[in-house]
């Protein structure tokens, strides 16, 4: 059939335009679609919410600008939750390009919740070497970070008095877009038994379900959806919830494209005449 063949030969620029509209329109004209909270994000929220005031959380923001759309809203939401609960945060990153993002998230959350640097939070900055840094914090925090991200010796920071390893930290939060999560789980949780929650990009979240079921991580926040759920739990309308409208619409467009593509293929050749999944270059 002619229409089916024309559809199958659809110019990919039309698809690109549809996706662009699907992203731009909901961001300019928000629909505010509802966000249901999953048990995994609820568990992560509960782990933070149960911390007594004055306890210390280690937050490692191990991501770079490519995944900031998913993970920065998560960082800001967790930081705001901690500051509201008067839980102190020692923040760091294992990525050199994560330094700017970590600082941005801390600045935004501290401004929103009026938290004070070195009293309510400390920015430890970047240190190279995944395993070594994670293991080293379990032995002696000051050996790994003798000074904070601004060059202040850790001993002169009031918030870190008496805090020198996971033993003095109530929770480890790792927000990551990489295998750093594996090392945090294997070493910080596995070896030093630090209670831990994990936030990851949506595409890698499913890899960490076994750790959730074995209680090696107490909660799991996956992708922008997870960030939006966390924002809902702390009653904030941030970039996570703002982005969910666009993500919803783009998912619908992709599903419609897949259905249309299959119907057109069937109409033109029949099921057996088509190419298999992954058989055609984009």
């Amino acid at each position: 059939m002619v229409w089916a063949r024309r559809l199958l030969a659809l110019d990919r620029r039309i698809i690109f335009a549809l996706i662009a509209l699907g992203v731009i329109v909901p961001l300019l004209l928000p629909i505010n679609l509802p966000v249901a909270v999953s048990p995994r994000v609820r568990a992560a929220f509960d782990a933070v919410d149960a911390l007594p005031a004055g306890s210390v959380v280690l937050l490692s923001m191990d991501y770079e600008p490519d995944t900031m759309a998913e993970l920065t809203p998560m960082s800001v939401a967790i930081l705001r939750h901690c500051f509201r609960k008067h839980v102190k945060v020692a923040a760091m990153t294992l990525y050199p390009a994560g330094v700017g993002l970590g600082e941005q998230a801390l600045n935004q959350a501290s401004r929103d919740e009026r938290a004070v640097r070195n009293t309510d939070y400390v920015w430890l900055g970047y240190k190279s070497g995944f395993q070594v840094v994670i293991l080293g914090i379990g032995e002696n925090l000051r050996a790994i970070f003798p000074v904070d991200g601004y060059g202040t010796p850790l001993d002169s920071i009031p918030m870190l008095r008496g805090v020198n390893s996971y033993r003095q930290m109530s929770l480890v939060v790792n927000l990551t877009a990489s295998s750093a999560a594996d090392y945090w789980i294997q070493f910080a949780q596995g070896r030093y038994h630090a209670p831990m929650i994990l936030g990851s990009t949506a595409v890698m979240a499913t890899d960490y379900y076994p750790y959730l079921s074995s209680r090696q991580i107490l909660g799991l926040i996956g992708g922008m959806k997870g960030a939006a759920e966390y924002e809902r739990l702390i009653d904030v309308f941030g970039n996570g919830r703002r982005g969910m409208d666009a993500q919803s619409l783009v998912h619908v467009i992709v599903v419609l494209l897949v259905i249309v593509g299959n119907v057109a293929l069937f109409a033109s050749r029949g099921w057996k005449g088509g190419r298999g999944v992954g058989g055609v270059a984009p």
Partner: protein
Amino acid sequence: MRRGPLLVTFLSGTVIAALFFIPHHKAQEFNSTLLGWTLVVYAFALALGSLSLWENHARKIRTRSEGWPYSLVTLGALLIVTGLGIWKGVAEGTPVGRIYNSVNSPLGSTMFSLLAFVIASAAFRAFRARSPEATLLLLTAIVMMIGRVSIGELMSDKLPGITEWLLDVPNLAAKRAIAIGVGLGAVSTALKIILGIERSYLGRS
């Protein structure tokens, strides 16, 4: 000639693995010392990486290889950002902070965002219900894509429950099996390296 590196690998592997199981404070102090050494090795690795980057791109510029202007941009950026970082620091508000926020951050986000366009186009052209297995994959993907976003919850209150089941049962079972396999493989590879059976890390003979 290769006995030295093999011996270092054997000793490092066995000693560090043994320290993991010895809770005595002397053993743990030694473990901390070794961790300190490893940090220094990492710092040298960064320096080595920068030198290698410099050498690789400088060669491209010298020989006018294809795309050599890009190498010029890379080396220029390396020099400028490193110089500014050493001179003015890297915190927010410094020149490096501004370069990071106005160049690095948007470029990184843009590159990753392009995936959405490529994936949409690829899904349209390649995601076909050609066989029963492919149809199952296709249906699962559609349920997941719709059920995991807000619009799915509006379409049907059962969709989120179905996606939760898919994640908690088939996905969990498969991921657990993969994790156990990867773990066993990692132990086997580590043993081969420690015992000197696997020597590819030493480079060509």
